[in-house]
């Protein structure tokens, strides 16, 4: 059951937007024609492979590559010496600031290997077999150092130190000693002590979550070709070809204009493809070998050496009156950053209490380095972790106060004008609407049986805009090519083409959308932050308006009337209110036919920094059954409700909601990184890193609520990230109601659940 309920939708009536056409790139993807990262073969191509550290923490004493160099068929061997060392400098990327000093060390270890799987050298050879052989001939001398994996242990004074020059930022005065704590952040509002004093009930809990991987099905892959004169082309699977260009140019000391990056079709990213791993290595190898170099990660390399999201410890304390009003809330977040600083703890802090209207809040966050792969963005980075903790305590409070969990949330829900816990006031947001839709959904009233429970949780994500370009080119026959610069990861070519057709007033099949390489457009920030339909959509609409302006000018020239006498209606230039006499409206084809004579080719361009992204809020309802003898949790029914602002292509909005919900189910029940005592990952494959399979989940019902975003011409909000925020708490809340046990640690895997059930039985037996 998927339905769209319109709430306060703007007066504009749409012709194309809101319909469900076939995606323009669809046929290529159901026929196997679509080219993904590893699907390109070029003449004279070499295969590149990476040698990785077997140690979680080790000083690199020496690397001898001479034997590998000498192996017949080996064309290039590189180490960190082949990449630029760079000073500490933070610049925005994917999830947050990146530091090039860290990035160059993450793609290729320099002084130390900081996690198992950390790249230490790479080779390019005539075949994969020769490349593998060569890796075995590289002699690396390590001095193995003690390692630390747990965030709490890493914060202890005598913990093994990853970076001896790291002094905690955000603590005044600056600490005298270096530590593994990169940063302390704090957000505060009102007076929490006073708030807790007014509370009738206060609940305080600590939660633990494990690192989880985005689990995109396509491993990282790229093909680099650097010519003798230093001009380079790079083909890769990425969420942002422009970001890759910038990073690689910096790491290799190239001019940005010399490097053209083409984004292949991308087989999933979820934030994990917003950074570079193989790309700079392939370029460095190709530069050395003067031949194209293709590199593809194995699945084990993806798990070991690409960024999952943080494991964390989160302490939450919330107080409320007996009437159900929250009086104060506090949280302390400790997030693993992996080997280099930059966990999503800051957005985690800002999201923690964002769904609620609170007077007294205090959130403190710590960004902590540990001997694990550097985290990368993962869908609403930071939010799911802190909101899991907060939404669990909210549910427990509701139970303690004998309030329906939706009622309790409605009593405290943030709405337009609410001052967000992180500072500014919200514009129009849809939390209340999603809660009301959940309450009135048949799912919420459906009966439950023994060992079953129903859980509810809400979720928040900011969404972003950012730098974006789009171009529309009018063809000689009146058809239109749309060039966008944000990789299409889940149907955005469809939504962008729909917005172009809507604005131009033409049929959708007259628009052919393509994703341009870095030479085709000005800079585009990446596909992330749920920004594409919002930002690229905004750019496409502006480009369409720009093209319409030109079309009207040309029509005016054809008619020999002032441009004021021409209006654009239903895809035609028309005489403005009677002006210009009885002229027949001109279609794009008519205008294109004479374009040469009236001034040349006709294009529409937009280059913007999109502002005004609207937050998207969601409420999820889930039913589970817990097997009391095995601890196995089964998800029986799931309903996801979310504010999309305006759903341009509702099928793909539903798809985002369904996909995020199921990723959340995996996070809640089975997904986790498991390390052995020596700091080596024990489950770097889909066999033991257990993402949900088709038979694990029910249909995911969706309800799209539409509270238009006033800052987008069509009311669009980002929708991609919010869906992964509510599931963990929703499931924990359902399990709590099925078992009477509050689970504060993820994943809620069968052994963990059974242990808790047996402990409870034992306790009852005693009593």
């Amino acid at each position, binding site marked *: 059951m998927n339905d769209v309920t319109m709430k306060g939708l703007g007066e504009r009536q749409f012709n194309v937007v809101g319909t469900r056409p076939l995606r323009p790139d669809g046929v290529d993807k159901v026929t196997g024609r679509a080219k993904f990262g590893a699907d390109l073969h070029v003449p004279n191509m070499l295969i590149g492979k990476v040698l990785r550290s077997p140690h979680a923490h080790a000083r690199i004493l020496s690397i001898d590559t001479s034997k590998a160099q000498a192996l017949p068929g080996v064309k290039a061997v590189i180490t960190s010496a082949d990449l630029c060392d760079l000073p500490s400098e*933070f*610049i*925005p*990327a*994917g*999830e*947050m*600031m990146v530091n090039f000093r860290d990035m160059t060390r993450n793609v290729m270890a320099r002084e130390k290997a900081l996690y198992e799987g950390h790249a230490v050298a790479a080779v390019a050879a005539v075949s994969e077999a020769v490349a593998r052989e060569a890796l075995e001939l590289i002699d690396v001398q390590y001095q193995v150092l003690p390692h630390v994996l747990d965030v709490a242990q890493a914060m202890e004074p005598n913990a093994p130190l990853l970076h001896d020059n790291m002094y905690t930022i*955000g603590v*005044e005065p600056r600490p005298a000693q270096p530590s593994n704590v990169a940063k*302390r*952040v*704090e*957000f*505060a*509002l009102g007076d929490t002590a006073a708030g807790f004093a007014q509370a009738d009930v206060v609940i305080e809990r600590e939660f633990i979550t494990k690192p989880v991987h*985005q689990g995109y099905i396509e491993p990282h892959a790229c093909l680099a070709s650097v010519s003798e004169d230093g001009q380079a082309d790079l083909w890769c699977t990425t969420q942002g070809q422009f970001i890759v260009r910038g990073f690689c140019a910096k790491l290799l000391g190239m001019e940005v204009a010399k490097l053209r990056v083409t984004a292949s079709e991308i087989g999933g*990213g*979820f*934030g*994990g493809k*917003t950074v570079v791993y193989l790309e700079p290595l392939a370029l460095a190898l190709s530069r050395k070998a003067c031949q194209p170099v293709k590199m593809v990660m194995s699945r084990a390399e993806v798990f070991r050496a690409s960024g999952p999201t943080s494991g964390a410890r989160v302490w939450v304390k919330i107080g409320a009156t007996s009437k159900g009003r929250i009086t104060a809330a506090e949280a302390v977040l400790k997030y693993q950053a992996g080997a280099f600083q930059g966990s999503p703890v*800051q*957005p985690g802090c*800002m999201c923690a209490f964002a769904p609620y209207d609170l007077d007294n809040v205090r959130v403190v966050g710590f960004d902590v380095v540990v001997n694990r792969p550097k985290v*990368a*963005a*993962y*869908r*609403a*980075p930071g939010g799911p972790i802190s909101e899991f903790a907060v939404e669990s305590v909210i549910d427990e409070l509701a139970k303690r106060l004998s309030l329906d969990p939706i009622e309790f949330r409605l009593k405290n829900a943030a709405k337009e004008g609410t001052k967000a816990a*992180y*500072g*500014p*006031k*919200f*514009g129009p947001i849809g939390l209340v609407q999603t809660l009301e839709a959940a309450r009135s959904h048949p799912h919420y009233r459906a009966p439950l049986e023994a060992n079953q429970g129903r859980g509810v949780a809400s979720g928040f*994500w*900011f*969404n*972003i*805009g*950012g*730098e974006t370009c789009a171009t529309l080119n009018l063809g000689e026959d009146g058809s239109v090519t749309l060039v966008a610069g944000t990789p299409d990861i889940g149907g955005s070519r469809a939504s962008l083409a729909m917005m172009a057709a809507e604005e131009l007033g033409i049929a959708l099949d007259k628009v052919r959308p393509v994703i341009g390489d870095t030479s085709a457009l000005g800079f585009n920030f990446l596909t*992330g*932050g*749920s*920004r594409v339909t919002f930002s690229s959509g905004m750019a496409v609409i502006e480009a369409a308006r720009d093209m319409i302006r030109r079309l009207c000018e040309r029509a005016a020239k054809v008619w020999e009337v002032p441009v004021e006498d021409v209006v654009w209606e239903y895809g035609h230039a028309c005489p403005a209110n009677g002006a210009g006499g009885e002229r027949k409206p001109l279609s794009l084809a008519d205008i294109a036919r004479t374009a040469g004579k009236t001034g040349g080719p006709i294009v529409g361009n937009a280059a913007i*920094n999109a*502002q*005004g*992204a609207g937050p998207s809020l969601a409420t999820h309802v889930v039913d589970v059954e817990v097997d009391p003898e095995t601890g196995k949790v089964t998800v029986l029914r799931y309903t996801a409700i979310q504010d999309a602002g305006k759903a341009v292509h509702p099928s793909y909005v539903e798809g985002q909601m369904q996909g995020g919900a199921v990723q959340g189910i995996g996070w809640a029940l089975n997904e986790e990184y498991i390390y052995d005592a020596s700091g080596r990952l024990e489950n770097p494959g889909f066999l033991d890193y257990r993402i949900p399979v088709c038979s694990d989940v029910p249909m995911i019902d969706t309800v799209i609520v539409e509270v238009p975003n006033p*800052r987008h011409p069509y009311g669009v909000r*980002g929708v991609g*990230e919010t869906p992964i925020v509510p599931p963990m708490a929703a499931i924990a809340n359902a399990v709590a109601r099925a078992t009477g046990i509050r689970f504060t640690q993820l994943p809620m895997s069968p052994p963990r659940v059974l242990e808790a059930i047996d402990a409870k039985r034992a306790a009852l037996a005693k009593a």
Partner: protein
Amino acid sequence: MARVILSGTLRQLAGGEAQIEVEASDVRQLLRALGERYPALAPHLESGYAVAIDGEIFQDAWFAPIRQDSEVHLVPAIRGG
């Protein structure tokens, strides 16, 4: 004068000031004024922070207008996955 509200880390860097009155008609003037008044803030303002003007968040937007009675929050820039 626009009211600028600082929280957490920035407040510490501004010597504990929670609210500051600043004469500025756009974001660039505001950041400049803040940096001059609180040199410790300056490096942080250059990157990594967004400006919320009367509730609407602007990232990297020097010329977003600020009204005399605007309430301005400095919040960490968000990127997302």
